[in-house]
């Protein structure tokens, strides 16, 4: 009996010490400190710009979460964004109608992801190396398409989507935030409540065991890369319309921010562990820090220090500190 309650208590402690809980506390702290430091922090206007400036990164973390949980990584995301943006400008400058361009971008994004996925699954190459290669390749395509040119004569009807609020939301919600929320729900349900999602965890824990359990590891991984390609192409469109500029270096270097957020969420780099709620919290933490530091006149470029420190905390706390704290608590509850 007492043995059972002890085990129950240990489980409770474990779940209380989950990384996501800590992250939620961090997010609350950031927003509390932010609003204490600046009265502008919690205004709708500021939250709007917060959503605006982090929308594309946030959207790209969703497929990245699934890919990392499945045991792979995709470093080409920012290059697919750039390629999509460049192609959008390239085709628009040649007089293509916008709907045709959107279809093309979707196809190109999915194809770019398929190349990643097929190289990883069919040729059994490490995704880290493959996507460093396609990072250069896709950015290279953007460079070839646009060279030093900039395209920025997009029609207002479209660029307004990038900077205006969604109607009927009291001017607080950007389109990219709306897409992120919808995407987070869809990806969350798929990951946590479907056989597909369970198999993503299974192959991340052990690809071989998943294979023997009859999970189509290669097919699912390829699908994940294709979804990532599509989502990044969409992020490229949002980016282009938000800045009203198609240029080859759009989103340069964002891949590391996206990976950093997903790892910050407590997703294991080795796969098999993590949750989408954690990723949503990590996005909030990331955006909140950027914004709070901006309002406190901290050097905007140097906010990476805080991101980096949180990233270190995300690996050291669960693997070094939390087990220690857990042991300590258990010993206290025994005595």
């Amino acid at each position, binding site marked *: 009996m007492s043995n059972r309650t002890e085990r129950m208590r240990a489980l409770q402690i474990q779940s209380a010490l989950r990384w996501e809980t800590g992250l939620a506390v961090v997010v609350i702290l950031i927003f509390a400190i932010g609003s204490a430091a600046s009265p502008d922090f919690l205004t709708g206007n500021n939250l709007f710009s917060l959503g605006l400036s982090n929308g594309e990164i946030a959207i790209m973390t969703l497929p990245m979460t699934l890919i990392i949980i499945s045991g792979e990584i995709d470093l080409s995301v920012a290059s697919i964004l750039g390629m999509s943006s460049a192609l959008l400008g390239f085709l628009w400058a040649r007089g293509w109608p916008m709907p045709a361009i959107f279809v093309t971008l979707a196809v190109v994004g999915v194809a770019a992801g398929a190349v990643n996925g097929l190289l990883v699954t069919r040729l059994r190459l490490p995704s880290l190396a493959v996507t460093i290669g396609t990072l250069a390749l896709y950015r*290279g395509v953007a460079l070839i398409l646009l060279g030093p040119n900039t395209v920025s004569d997009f029609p207002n009807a479209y660029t307004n989507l990038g900077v205006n609020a969604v109607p009927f939301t009291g001017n607080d919600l950007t389109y990219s935030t709306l897409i992120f929320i919808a995407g987070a729900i869809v990806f969350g349900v798929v990951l946590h409540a479907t056989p597909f999602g369970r198999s993503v965890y299974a192959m991340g824990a052990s690809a071989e065991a998943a294979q023997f359990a009859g999970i189509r590891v290669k097919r699912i991984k390829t699908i994940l890369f294709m979804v990532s390609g599509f989502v990044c192409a969409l992020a490229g469109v949002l980016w282009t319309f938000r800045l009203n500029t198609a240029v080859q270096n759009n989103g340069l270097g964002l891949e590391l921010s996206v990976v950093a957020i997903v790892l910050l969420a407590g997703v294991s780099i080795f796969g098999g562990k993590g949750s989408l709620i954690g990723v949503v919290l990590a996005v909030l933490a990331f955006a909140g820090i950027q914004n709070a530091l901006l309002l406190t006149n901290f*050097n905007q470029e140097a906010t*990476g220090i805080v991101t980096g420190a949180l990233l270190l905390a995300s690996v050291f706390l669960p693997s070094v500190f939390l087990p220690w704290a857990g042991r300590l608590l258990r010993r206290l509850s025994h005595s």
Partner: protein
Amino acid sequence: MRAAIAASRQQQPDRVRQSGLAMRVFRIRESGILVVLVVFVAVTTGVQHRFLDASNIQFVLVDTATFALLALGETMVVISRNVDLSVGSVVGLSAYLSASLFASHPGLPIPVIFLAGLGIGLACGIANGVMVAAGRVPSLVVTLATLYIIRGIDILVVGGNEVDANQLPNAFLDIPKDTVGGIPDIAIAVAVVIAIGAYYLRSYRSGRDLYAIGSNPDAARLAGLTVGRRVFTAFAVSGAIAGVAGVLWAAQYGTINSTAGTGYELQVVSAVVVGGVAIFGGSGSVTGAAIGALLLTTISSALYVLGISSFWDQAIWGFLLLVAITLDQTITERLTSALSTRRAGRRRTRHE
């Protein structure tokens, strides 16, 4: 136990034969990329003779020197199944701090500046090494974090300032221009360092340990190798090298602001992988990585000389990288199956 060790020692000739085969494969790997390099140079020269002009060769060698130096440190880390993503930020921090030190104390001898750069890099490398080795957390995450943190520190230190060429002594700015017999000094110096690195990894026990750790970290630990210490050393060396590379960067470009070296880490990893170093450790060589760096620089230069827009650089780099890792995988798979057939064959003869 001791008998087992003695028995394994007596099997030495057997192992020598195996490592002979492995060495031959290493050579095949390097000669593969060397062939690509030679063909590339030959074709480019055929189209545009200017490509093999002394001035262009010097240009390529100077550009390669810093790059190959960084590839040396990265190779040591990658061979041990780790990765160091912070090198670009270390280059930037070291470049700015060493250059501003020189700008404020122009009387300092140049070697002191290099030592300062080395010290800055070493400190960063030690920080990485301690976290990866003692904390046993994945190096990809740790060095991704230090990439941001070191760059952030750099930005805070630099502010909106920059050091530009007229604040630096000419003797310093001339370092990349000095030549011996038409070959840039720094290319010779880097070649010597790479030769030392190659010899160390090939012939020293601690160097071989890195390969063992990279092939199978658990087995290496069980075999009694000091895994943590070796990995720590690899990161410390990679950091120190990046620090020196930062000083070279400062000498080469003259103008240093807070963006120096941004994004360099992925280029260095590319050179290492193109040079035949397996991204998950255990195989590859420093020489290969240096040739990888030379090949990537040569491609950029060839496109320039041929009048092809440099906008094609990236795409060709990326494509080559994909070809290189595909080839590498094919060779490894062939080798594994060849080795297992050989072993099976030998076992059969022994049983008969």
